[in-house]
């Protein structure tokens, strides 16, 4: 099957097909993150949302807050991008879990802290792609890019993450899943965005 058709089929299955494929993929992500941080991480049901770009900013964070985004491309097999978004305070708590340090130890985003969060993003997207790959052999190896960790105001983060996708469309298609540890010390949203150049919805 050709690359473009294969991608279209896989995205179509994920977005419009039986929900279990997407649910299973996000459960894989939750299990992988649980193993990684040593605390139980659970997920809500993934939601597929098509929303105007202007509304997306509101979902990233309130003005005046500082947020962290862990941003990756899907580099081969399946084209798209993924972002983990969380408030800075939760990001620091997540770093403490990764470093096996008492909560409150991490107080700023230095090199090590950014690297720890980058690894969270790498693992989250890899586990998502691993799950999709089990039923999508026609698109070959599904691989994430190295992660980028962005810290800033919601508008700044949004511009960096969705600008090129938004330039092509007035609306963005986002698969959004909420994750949290059971103590609610870490909560984040995981967005998966199909490549807008793939006309997956139409034959």
């Amino acid at each position: 099957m050709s690359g473009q058709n294969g991608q279209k089929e896989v995205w179509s299955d994920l977005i419009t097909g039986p929900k279990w494929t997407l649910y299973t993929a996000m459960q894989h992500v939750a299990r992988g993150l649980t193993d990684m941080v040593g605390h139980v991480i659970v997920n809500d049901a993934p939601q597929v949302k098509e929303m105007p770009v202007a509304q997306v900013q509101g979902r990233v964070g309130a003005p005046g807050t500082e947020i962290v985004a862990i941003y990756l491309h899907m580099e081969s097999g399946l084209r798209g991008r993924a972002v983990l978004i969380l408030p800075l305070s939760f990001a620091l708590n997540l770093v403490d879990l990764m470093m096996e340090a008492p909560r409150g130890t991490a107080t700023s985003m230095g090199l090590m802290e950014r690297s720890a969060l980058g690894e969270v993003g790498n693992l989250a997207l890899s586990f998502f792609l691993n799950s999709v790959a089990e039923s999508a052999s026609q698109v070959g190896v599904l691989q994430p890019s190295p992660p980028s960790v962005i810290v800033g105001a919601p508008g700044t983060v949004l511009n960096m993450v969705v600008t090129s996708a938004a330039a092509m469309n007035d609306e963005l298609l986002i698969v959004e899943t909420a994750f949290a540890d059971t103590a609610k010390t870490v909560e984040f949203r995981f967005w998966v965005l199909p490549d807008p150049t793939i006309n997956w919805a139409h034959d």
Partner: protein
Amino acid sequence: MPTVMITDDSLFIRVKIAKLLARHGYETIQAEDGEQAVEVYRETSPDAVLMDVTMPHKNGLQALAEILQFAPEARIIMLTALAQKSVATTAVTYGAKDFLVKPIHPDQLITALDRVLAA
């Protein structure tokens, strides 16, 4: 003391593994990507290599193939979050001694290293 080269673009992973290996009596050197891994291997010939797959500049599978061309005796263990059959098959076909899926448990890593070094 055996020397292990840790190749991963994640500083967090390199430091975490280095601390673990130090506790078990290993010396370590680090490389940030596949290109650096090939250069460092040429210069130092470590006893074993832990190699991430997804890295910028040159990925782990490319570095694995290149190192084994000039050092067929190299003991390279792949580390990756990509638990996809084709990735594991490629790594083994190229000559990796083992393939571990992240997140890696400390006991699992030490067992894999001990096994590879004993062979």
